[in-house]
């Protein structure tokens, strides 16, 4: 058994790419070991810091095992004529590297063939790695990569500066990107005096720690959390605000972390907390500190890439920077108040939304139009409204909010802190005495920014958010700017996810087809409309796009199984709350034995109908003529269908999908008997067609909640 260590040393890797890069390297290395039969159960530990990715693998074979195999050659008759080898036999022997006398004969169903038993010699692990690892390293996916040695060389996340590759005590002679692997690594840029030689892979973490590099991200995280806990203690009863994303960022920005507490003048606390926290977190990567009541305290915590700040110089420097940033923010806040949001609507004419879609002024006009209609639809409830609740929408406020929602793009504060768009508009609306419904809707209208983020809380915010996002998607799709693969420059997938989540959580009676017809119609008469080249495909491409988003939502966010989702969406993907409710109902009944059988029967029906259709070339009509029935089982099925069908329609209309499905399950015994006793494809054409018509009706009438044929049975 052997241990292997690989370390790639680089210029600082972007923090956001480190975790995925490390995991992919580990996976590629392990896949390679498995593919090349280098050990039965090797164990891998992956390490990373801003300057390195590393994997330590234990339990490796020192060399591949030899493999014996039998290779088949030409037909024996061709290879030997009258017991004498022909050139075909010579060629085969030469190809597989044995003498003709060593060749054997094998019998197969196709006849007798020439064969050779050969042993492929296993190669030394080091040799295999040296040959194959460079390709694995070069194959790692990076969200953004670069050249550094000129065109036609490798692209990688950042320039590779050194490589260490050790198999037990020995160098593995790898080469990648012009760098030859060695047996030395480098320590912390500033706190170590350079390089360290390794004798054994297992020493990696220990030796590097002496060089002021903690190679395990998990360990750095622990150290940071402890340091933050400790640093915050000097402020009575305060605690630091947890922030997973920020923690992960600072873990990936440091090799030997510590933390310091800094302070700012309490007078800045008069600025909105959102602004202060954004400056600290997004711009300075500081953790915010709050008092026992959860209120922001005038302190911050910075995570350092050195082991301390004995002279207080670092604290002083960070405080100085934060002061300048807060000063700017305060200056912007005060300046912005001189022009109220209402006076900024006109200024939106000078702000581009998208080069072909015009200005934000035009966007505001469109979304004000769209929300007005949406609000009316939602208030009237539609047939798909939430069960038994009438909803009141502050329609005038919503209309005003739509016009004002984008005005904060003209403010200095948003120009400086773009991530606060919407939030700043909401804060200004409040500060300028606008009604809370207006301020809240503006504040929330970019939400949800991800599937983890909450949907807008207020109904007005929800509608504004939907209208804004639908407007963007409609315009881009009409221009043909449809996301594909990793290309989604306008983050339309995220916006569509936002629409799905918002409609689902508010159970809004909004049909996607209707919403997007409305959103496109809002562009009518605009300059943008003249550039729309994809209007014909529009409805279809939007529907396909949303079907994917809805699938993602139901599966990954709501946790439904993929076949349940397929079954539900096959029936309809336009009405989101309905699709969610149907999924819930389906998931609840699918475990019952009746249901599993029903699903199998429906699949069978679908196949029978498809085959019949292929044969006759015409679709099978639904219906049943009792007088043509020849079998009791046939009549029994028909009677049951007649009995259940109206019930299912009623329950479906009342949105009691669970009960509807339980009704459908009642078909099981008669369906089972039908398939046991009745031969659908009867000789007599009329009898056959009548049976097919009955099955077609079963499929049509009872696939209104879900298409059961999509269900994959557990057995």
């Amino acid at each position, binding site marked *: 058994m052997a241990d292997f260590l690989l370390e790639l040393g680089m210029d*600082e890797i972007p923090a956001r790419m480190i975790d995925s890069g490390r995991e992919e390297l580990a996976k590629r290395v392990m896949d390679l070991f498995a593919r090349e039969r280098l050990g039965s159960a090797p164990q891998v530990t992956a390490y990373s810091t801003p300057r390195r990715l590393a994997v330590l693998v234990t339990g490796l074979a020192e060399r591949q095992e030899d493999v014996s195999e039998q290779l088949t050659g030409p037909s024996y008759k061709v290879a030997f004529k009258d017991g004498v080898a022909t050139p075909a036999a010579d060629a085969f022997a030469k190809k597989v590297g044995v003498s003709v006398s060593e060749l054997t004969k094998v019998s197969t169903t196709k006849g007798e063939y020439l064969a050779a038993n050969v042993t492929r010699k296993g190669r030394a692990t080091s040799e295999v790695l040296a040959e194959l690892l460079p390709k694995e390293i070069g194959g790692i996916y990076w969200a953004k*990569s670069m050249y550094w040695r000129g065109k036609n060389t490798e692209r990688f996340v950042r320039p590779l500066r050194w490589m260490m590759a050790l198999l037990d005590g020995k160098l593995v002679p790898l080469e990648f990107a012009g760098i030859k692997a060695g047996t030395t690594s480098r320590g912390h840029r500033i706190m170590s005096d350079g390089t360290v030689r390794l004798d054994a892979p297992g020493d990696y973490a220990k030796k590097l720690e002496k060089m002021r590099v903690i190679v395990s991200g998990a360990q750095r995280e622990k150290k940071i959390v402890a340091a933050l806990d400790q640093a915050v203690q000097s402020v009575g009863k305060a605690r630091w605000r947890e922030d997973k994303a920020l923690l992960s960022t600072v873990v990936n920005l440091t090799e030997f972390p510590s933390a310091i507490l800094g302070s700012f003048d309490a007078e800045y606390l008069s600025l909105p907390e959102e602004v202060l926290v954004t400056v600290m977190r997004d711009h300075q990567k500081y953790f915010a500190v709050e008092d026992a009541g959860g209120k922001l305290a005038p302190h911050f915590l910075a995570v350092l890439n050195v082991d301390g700040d004995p002279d207080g110089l670092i604290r*002083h420097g960070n405080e100085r920077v934060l002061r300048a940033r807060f000063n*700017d923010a305060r200056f912007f806040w005060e300046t912005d108040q001189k022009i109220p949001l209402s006076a900024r609507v006109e200024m939106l004419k000078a702000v581009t939304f998208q080069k072909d879609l015009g200005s934000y002024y035009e966007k505001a006009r469109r979304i004000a139009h769209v929300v007005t209609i949406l609000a009316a639809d939602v208030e009237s409830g539609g047939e798909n409204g939430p069960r038994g609740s009438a909803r009141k929408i502050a329609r005038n406020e919503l209309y005003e909010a739509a016009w004002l929602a984008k005005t904060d793009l003209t403010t200095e504060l948003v120009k400086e802190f773009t991530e606060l768009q919407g939030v700043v508009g909401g804060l200004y609306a409040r500060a300028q005495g606008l009604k809370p419904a207006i301020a809240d809707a503006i504040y929330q209208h970019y939400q949800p920014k991800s599937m983890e983020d909450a949907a807008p809380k207020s109904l007005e915010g929800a509608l504004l958010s939907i209208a804004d996002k639908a407007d963007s998607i409609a315009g881009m799709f009409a221009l043909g700017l449809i996301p594909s693969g990793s290309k989604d420059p306008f983050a339309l997938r995220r916006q569509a996810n936002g629409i799905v989540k918002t409609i689902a959580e508010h159970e809004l009676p909004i049909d996607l087809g209707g919403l997007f017809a409305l959103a496109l119609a809002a562009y009518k008469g605009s300059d943008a409309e003249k550039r729309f080249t994809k209007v014909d495909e529009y409805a279809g491409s939007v529907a396909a796009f949303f079907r994917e988003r809805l699938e993602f939502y139901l599966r990954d966010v709501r946790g439904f199984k993929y076949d349940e989702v397929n079954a539900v969406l096959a029936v309809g993907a336009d009405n989101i709350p309905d699709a969610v409710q149907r999924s819930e109902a389906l998931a609840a009944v699918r475990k019952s034995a009746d249901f599993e059988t029903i699903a199998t029967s429906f699949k069978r029906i679908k196949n029978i109908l498809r085959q019949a259709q292929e044969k006759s070339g015409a679709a099978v009509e639904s219906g049943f003529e009792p007088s043509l029935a020849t079998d009791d089982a046939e009549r029994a099925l028909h009677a049951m269908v007649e009995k259940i069908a109206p019930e299912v329609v009623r329950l479906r209309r009342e949105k009691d999908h669970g009960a509807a499905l339980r009704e459908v399950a009642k078909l099981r015994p008669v369906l089972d008997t039908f398939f046991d006793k009745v031969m659908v494809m009867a000789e007599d054409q009329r009898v056959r067609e009548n049976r097919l018509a009955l099955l077609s009706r079963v499929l049509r009438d009872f696939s209104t909640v879900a298409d059961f044929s999509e269900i994959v049975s557990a057995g």
Partner: protein
Amino acid sequence: MASAKTTGLTFQELIFTLQKFWAEQGCILQQPYDVEVGAGTMSPETFLRVLGPKPYSVAYLQPSRRPADGRYGDNPNRLFKHTQLQVILKPPPQDVQELYLRSLQAIGIDLRKHDLKFEEDNWESPTLGAWGIGWQVMLDGMEVTQFTYFQQCGGVDLDPISAELTYGLERLCAFLQDVDSVYDIVWARDASDSKKHDSKKQGGREITYREVRHAEEVQFSVYNFEQADVEKCWEHLRLYEAECKALIDGYAAAKKAKQDVAKYPVLAAFDLCLKCSHLFNLLDARGAISVTERVGVIAQVRALAVGVAKAYADQQSAQESGDAQSPEAAVANG
């Protein structure tokens, strides 16, 4: 805390020190370019020199004008014209980051007492058709340098790659001197004046950044935001654009006619392109560019920059192959 104020380099000492450092690393010291630019990258010492195969290392100071950033001299951190020290290393040495860290030590920063991080920050200039991969270098939470591996310039893929280091000198100096406002930076100490003043202070009377530059910030803010004649700016833009375009087209025509292009004034075309870029910024600060115009003008300036870059790269490679051929040509002629 012990104030760094009395020990920090003056603004001009900071410039001397960095220039000396990079000169010792083999950089040519160039002077600031004498046409208005928004960033050191726009100087031909970067924009054009990174094109083509010839190795080149240069350091220069570049006052950079961004009309919209002016704040009438009121904001302690924002300037209409700030000073960049730009270093181009083409191609960059293996230890380019270590070299950069040594430059910080050269200006008196003890890295063991500070917190330094390289945080991802990729640079892109749509108007120049240029982009690169790199970092903002953070020192105690402050961005002190933009560090970029250029990938493309003027729409041309670069080979070799250049490393570009851009130091924001006002910020860096305010940090070294521990002052909160750039206007309080000590620009110079008048050594000849020292006897008349407090002898304990090193070097005599202090001349601040405010004394040297404040009036310029105020007056240019007034001009850029209030008084620049919009009609005339548009007219200038049209004229410069037309001439630049004519030169670019002329280059293509000369090539087509198989004329010798070695002396063709591609460099002059670039000056005209820079003029356009500055006028665009000025009109933008004046709020005189509508949405539709904006997209159009950016595309125009980009077309000029790309046109110049292509012509320049072509001219360089023509000279390159000419240089390579000349010995043979000499033999043939002899």
